[in-house]
């Protein structure tokens, strides 16, 4: 009877806090999660608060995680993760697809900095970016839960990547997979069309400018690559007759520079800044 009571207590606790994915998500591979993350960390939940925004129009939940280990980026010692939804008083705003953090529990997290507040972090792919760590009762081995049941490894070119079988895998195995993904080269396939907006230009000599742009869409060229919206591109614009010939040289994906070769020709006369282009990779 005692076992039954404990069992039900645990299950009820999980059920009442469980959230499904009431969101349409792109199912991302491990390589894509790794690339889109500015920080990959292991940490434990310290606290959580849910509050209305200043305009009392939206509810957000902020989870503070103490850093235990870093795999990518330069994370602070404590990270605040922002997610929409939560409960304030009687009002519950349900945004499934969010991670339901458990107090004093370890997580391996794939995070990106919020564009609107770089001190806050967002889980890449929402629930896909959070992996709860637990210790297997039988083997005492540390494992983590794959939130969507399994995870594709991703492949550098077209095709289907290997599968990391879940729903739970040993933490050590997963760390090796993350390390492999971090070390994998990123290659943007020829023909990939990247929509961008030019954000700034700077004179770099006679009839020559440095140009920066940012991508305007999340792009998933293949299962092994993602180019998140807002990724910065760099290039050089040279004045040729009545045109600017822009040679794009690299794009930064999750803080990692990736070389690319692409060219756009734009009419001169008006400022390049603010123009929206489609960059086709050669």
């Amino acid at each position: 009877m005692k076992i039954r009571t404990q069992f039900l207590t645990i299950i009820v606790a999980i059920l009442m806090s469980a959230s499904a994915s009431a969101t349409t998500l792109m199912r991302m591979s491990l390589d894509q999660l790794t690339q889109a993350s500015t920080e990959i960390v292991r940490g434990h939940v310290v606290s959580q608060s849910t509050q209305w925004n200043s305009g009392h129009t939206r509810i957000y939940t902020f989870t503070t995680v103490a850093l235990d280990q870093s795999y990518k980026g330069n994370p602070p010692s404590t990270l605040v993760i922002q997610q929409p939804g939560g409960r304030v008083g009687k009002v519950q705003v349900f945004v499934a697809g969010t991670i339901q953090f458990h107090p004093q529990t370890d997580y391996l997290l794939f995070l990106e900095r919020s564009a609107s507040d770089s001190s806050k972090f967002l889980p890449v792919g929402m629930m896909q970016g959070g992996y709860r760590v637990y210790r297997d009762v039988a083997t005492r081995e540390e494992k983590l839960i794959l939130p969507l049941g399994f995870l594709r490894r991703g492949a550098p070119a077209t095709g289907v990547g290997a599968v990391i079988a879940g729903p739970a895998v040993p933490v050590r195995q997963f760390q090796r997979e993350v390390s492999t993904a971090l070390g994998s080269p990123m290659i943007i396939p020829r023909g990939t069309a990247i929509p961008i907006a030019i954000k700034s230009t700077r004179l770099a000599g006679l009839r020559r400018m440095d140009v920066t742009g940012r991508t305007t869409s999340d792009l998933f060229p293949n299962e092994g690559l993602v180019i998140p919206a807002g990724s910065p591109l760099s290039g050089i614009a040279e004045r040729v007759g009545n045109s600017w010939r822009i040679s794009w040289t690299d794009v930064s994906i999750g803080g990692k520079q990736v070389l690319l070769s692409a060219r756009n020709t734009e009419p001169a006369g008006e400022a390049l800044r603010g123009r929206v282009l489609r960059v086709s990779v050669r």
Partner: protein
Amino acid sequence: MGAKRTNRVRVRIWVAGMGCLALMGAILAYAFTTIQDDVNGIAVPSRWANASFTWVLNNTGTAPSNVDVSDGTNPLPIKTVLANAASTWAAASLNGQQLTNINITNGADVSTLATPQVDCTNVISFNDTNTADFPTGTIALAVVSQDYERTASPDSPGLTYTYIECGNQTVTTTSPSIIYDADIIFNPNSSFSTSTPALSNSYDLPSIATREIGYALGLDESAISHTVMFSGGENQQRTLASDDVIAIGYLYPSSSFSSYLGTLSGQITLANIGGAYAAHVVAIDAVTGNAITDRLTNSDGSYNLYVPPGNYYVLALPLGSDSTHGISYIGDFSGWSCGYDMSAPPCCDTSATECNGATLFPATNFTGQFF
């Protein structure tokens, strides 16, 4: 099995030790479920009061730049796509029987809002400017606001509950938990198409809109892979499967829901423990092998599956007998095979007692995702 006949099916499943408990948080997403609230310690479905839902488009009249409404085959205006998606739910039928009774209407467009708000206006937006809402990989999401009343047990029939929402809107209904605001936001950084089929490199707006409106109405995930509400996403399913129809009928039933559907009921038990809470049960059409509907069990392991007249197998899915075996979603049944991909059977460890390498029932091919 004829209509209204109730079968009692008692199934015993084997689950190894407490190791499975840690996995359950990941598994719970995988069944036909509804959005719920905690009322007096009991999880009850949240519904729109009086089965009425009005949505408005946040649009100034011009299609947003990330939605292609002109290319491809038979592209449609955005509002037509959304209205079609809403009608799909309002007219949800199974074998010619309309099982739901919900009134869905389209209100006048609103002018551009910066972000969706908890304001009792159900806005569908393509231009949410709050980048914090869209981590990489987010295509669309529904933001659903719920309220509840604790004045009486949710099991008490005939009671009415009065809610005051958004400052001054009074609602009286029989539901102890309501949804009073639901906004749907499509990622402005994703490309959508209204063509049939969708343009390459674009998401299929009709299927995603149908899915998101399902959430706004109070539905959550299904584990059946050919449903609109399947948790895996990306399946571009525009038309409702039987599980979708039964789910929306369960929330907003027409008179046909109880007169046409029968009930399969039973209990899932665990060795040495008793009733298994949140086990996953699936009704399989015995003739076609189609997965018709699925549910999670109640706290005592009991379940009710609402099914049209027919003969069924009831499959009780293990939540994962250990960390490497189990089933996370299912397709249809015409047999049994195993493997992470169907080209590489068998996946079942023949030494594992939940598989034994044996056919579970006469069907011959079981498609789905195993772990």
